[in-house]
């Protein structure tokens, strides 16, 4: 575990890490921005002009109400309208596990953005492994707190899977951080030792070109 100096401004720990990778003044698109916590943080602390895309009406409305620029729509469709390299960073935060065509989306993401930031709950965390081994039921964790029949998540991903995926799709992993935190927590820690086993989330900075 290593200590990282992060400004805790009321946003989730994983979002604090994402924010720390973005330079002031950058142009950012947040795919699946929810109520716009990250964008709001970036705007206030990093002078970042951000745009969000969100499909849930109430979340879109809340984000616009707090003064963010947000589009109501499906990320797979909305992403097509932007010109190449329109953004410095395109963020896909905890949404990859809900995407139907991940490779297509990642390609689009790296078309419209110079860099991408992708994060997801790590399904190979030891807690999940043990649950499956000993209980025999589909695992339920704090990060993925759903029964198999009511989950919005259509796939499960591990940190190792994503590294392999980068080679298959053909993008570069520029930075990688594994963290241990819970879904809504503002506190957490960075995992350097055995991340695939010990981290609850993986966060990747990705770029164009084969790794």
């Amino acid at each position: 575990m290593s200590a990282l100096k992060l400004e805790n401004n009321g946003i989730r720990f994983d979002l604090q890490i994402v924010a720390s990778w973005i330079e002031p003044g950058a142009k950012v698109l947040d795919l699946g921005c929810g109520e716009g916590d990250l964008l709001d943080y970036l705007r206030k602390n990093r002078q970042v002009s951000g745009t969000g895309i969100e499909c849930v009406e109430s979340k879109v409305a809340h984000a616009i109400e707090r003064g963010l620029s947000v589009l109501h729509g499906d990320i797979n469709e909305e992403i097509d309208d932007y010109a190449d390299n329109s953004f410095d960073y395109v963020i896909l935060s905890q949404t990859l596990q809900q995407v139907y065509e991940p490779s297509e989306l990642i390609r689009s993401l790296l078309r419209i953005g110079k860099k991408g930031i992708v994060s997801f709950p790590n399904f190979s965390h030891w807690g999940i492994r043990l649950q499956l081994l000993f209980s025999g039921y589909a695992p339920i964790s704090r990060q993925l707190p759903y029964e198999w029949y009511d989950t919005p998540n259509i796939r499960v991903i591990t940190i190792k899977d994503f590294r392999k995926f980068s080679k298959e799709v053909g993008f570069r992993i520029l930075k990688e951080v594994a963290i241990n935190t819970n879904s809504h927590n503002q506190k957490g820690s960075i995992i350097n030792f055995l991340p695939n086993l010990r981290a609850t989330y993986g966060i990747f900075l990705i770029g164009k070109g084969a790794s």
Partner: protein
Amino acid sequence: MSEYIEHDRHGISVGLVEKKFFTFAEPPEKMALESGAKLGPVTIAYETYGRLNAEKSNAILICHALSGDSHVAGYYEEDDPKPGWWDIMVGPGKGIDTDKFFVVCTNILGSCMGSTGPSSMNPETKKPYGRDFPLVTVGDMVRAQRALLDDLEIEKVLSVIGGSIGGMQVLEWCVRYPEMVVSAIPLATTTKHSALAIAFNEVARQAIMADPNWKGGDYYADSKPDHGLAVARMIGHITYLSDESMRLKFGRQLKDKNNFSFHFDADFQVESYLRYQGTKFVERFDANSFLYITKAADYYDLEKKYGDGSAVEAFSRAKAKFLVVSFTSDWLYPTYQSKSMVQAMKKNGLDVSFCEIEAEWGHDAFLLPNQRLTALMKGFLERVCLEIGK
């Protein structure tokens, strides 16, 4: 759409307001219209609420729809039964906050609520224009609004806001005078009418023109084509609602009876409602104005006019920050039309927010009390103020 549907009788209001008039294009300096015809003098009725700040940076222009007028908010007299048509949105602390903003609304060119239109006196004949009134376009309406703002010495508007045909004016403002528009809120609108919208307008116009009292538009000395105009309004009202809202509001309920009358009186609630709306409308609106304004709306085609058919090209002229809003049950200006303008704005790298609000009340939804819409507009306007450092 149906202005004057809902109001907050006991709420906070801008209070007593006054309708003002501005006249320009006095002959021989007549206004050259987009059709090539010339018109003058032109009078524009308008109202203002709130205070223009010293920098003149807090002006908001509201554009009304088909049957609206300059009376957006407040009362003319203490005992007015109703406030202006968007009193729920415009006032102290409301979605468009008159404590912060200087709000201007004009009655559109071609209307009959104080601005020059077919029912106005033709100075050459000393009689109402009737059908001698030239066809005006959405572009002409906007140019007349511009003339007023010039007179008020307002060089930039913080926001242009409007729904339906008012939304068309908003879009026209953004591409015609991009340097003047800081932000824009087009609500429940489109860059061009669909065949469906044109079809309904045409049927409404035919209803007016089929009324024997219409007399080719020259009816001002005699009985007016009230029946035709009422039917036109009834058709309009159908398009402003939705299948769902009509089912919830009326269903198949009968009006003050348990059985059918077996003649052609209004049996159903919905019939009675439409008749009432029709009758009420003829008291305040001119049939010729209805013809002229619906035609202007049907002619409007932002893509064709500014982009050779391409919305992306058309919006390349725009500079404003946009908040685009549509409503789920609006079948007159369905969401796909808002989405296509949003797409064109995105492709031009414009700052655009979009929300499709869940609403069961059809096209009329934007005039009904809606906390979501109020909050969206408030948040958006606050951000715009912040970003221009006001």
